């Protein structure tokens, strides 16, 4: 019964979660540019980076899309069509329709951690999660992606052959039965399709 295709899912997607590390900004650019201005799902992003307290990443991403982009605040309601970036030096978690932050220890040397975001999203939204793993030089995201799969959600991975750094996507492909392995433009179209999917 742990079918891994979208067909086994009962609800339509409710949230997109994206994790990336080394080379992530260039990859995010292509994906965000391809999302239409009426995109109906909330998008939560964790990008590994150094400590910055002036939301540089959110501002840079805002330049690329008409969807509103901002750093997630603690207990902020998750609104469809908004793009949220995990603030640096905090873990970003999803909790019943709201974001939650934590300053617990780093996971795999990262805070924010992709595993933490993905696992909490899977726990809160079960099969209604679309998780995306992009380029990166770490194994962060593999455990989280496996959790998303175990709850019946969808996992899409950037084709390691096209990634600036293949370690992270390759690790996820090894760890769990991913739904799609695609180049960036393929991921963008996949997310568009997921966004307008209807419930079975």
């Amino acid at each position, binding site marked *: 019964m742990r079918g891994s295709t979208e067909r086994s899912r009962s609800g339509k997607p409710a949230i997109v979660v994206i994790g990336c590390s080394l080379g992530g900004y260039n990859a995010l650019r292509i994906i965000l540019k391809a999302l239409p201005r009426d995109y109906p799902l909330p998008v939560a992003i964790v990008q590994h980076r150094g400590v910055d307290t002036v939301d540089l990443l959110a501002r840079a991403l805002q330049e690329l899309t008409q969807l509103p982009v901002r750093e*997630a*605040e*603690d207990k902020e309601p998750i609104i469809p069509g908004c793009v949220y970036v995990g603030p640096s030096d905090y873990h970003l978690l999803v*909790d019943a329709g709201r974001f*939650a932050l*934590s300053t*617990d220890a780093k996971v795999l040397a990262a805070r924010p951690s992709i595993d933490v975001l993905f696992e909490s999203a899977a726990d809160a939204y079960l099969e209604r999660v679309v998780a995306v793993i992009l380029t990166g030089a770490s194994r962060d995201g593999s455990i989280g992606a496996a959790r998303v799969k175990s709850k019946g959600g969808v996992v899409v991975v950037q084709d390691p052959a096209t990634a600036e750094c293949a370690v992270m996507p390759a690790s996820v492909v090894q760890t769990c039965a991913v739904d799609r392995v695609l180049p960036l433009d393929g991921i963008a179209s996949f997310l568009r399709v997921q966004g307008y999917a209807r419930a079975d």
Partner: protein
Amino acid sequence: MPVAVQTQLSDVETMEIELLLDGVYRLYGCDFRNYALASLRRRIWNSARTEGVATISGLQEKILHDRACMERFLVQMSVSVTSVFRDPEFYAAIREKVIPHMRAHPFVRVWHAGCATGEEVYSMAIVLWEEGLYDRSRIYATDMNEVVLAKAREGIVTSDNLAEYEANYKAAGGKAQLSDYYTAKYDRAIFRGSLKKNIVFAEHNLVTDSSFNEFNLIFCRNVMIYFNSTLQARVHDLLYSSLRRLGVLALGRKETLRGATPHERNYEELDERERIYRKVA
């Protein structure tokens, strides 16, 4: 007779968490029932893994029958990790916008509510020192966990992070060298005793204990992120009633008063970006 299972597997986990927290509260009086679920769930599973049990019910059995296990659980529940001069811009704003108000008082009472391992307490002590206010200040640093508090009291940091701390200190407007304030020894650094003399470390639980003084300045940074909205509102009541009029409340960089407490309208913003507020009514 076959037993009908009424709920799905994920609901079983939620039920186990509720039962565990109920047991912990009834036996030990520690109340985590209004903690935010997502981070709570992570900490509980970390604890289960450390204890070598496969389920939360297994963890519950151990915690209820083994006091040492409960003590380890409490440490797991207070493992937030901070740094010396975390968010340097915040301390720069404290120097610029809060310290001038503090000069007006003959005596400055500061409360670090949920001080964890104390890095931010020593940071503020240094600011008060450099601004010439230390001698007439009393800093109360409280945490619910005794083990964590003992670490804070020692004032020891590992030297791995000293370069980062030194950079933070400079970016926060530090007037000397951070190394003036500690003694390095092997792989660790110990804050100077003179910095500790006006700091009082004490156990205090924001969830179950009440107000114990009136303060000019309260730091409660990245503590309420672990609470759900109900508990946040309650703790805001406690902080509000612990502040003198014109006292200052400092929250974490990603926390807000907006919508978190009806006392919102009783504060004015001293620095919106750094989440520093002043009680005006």
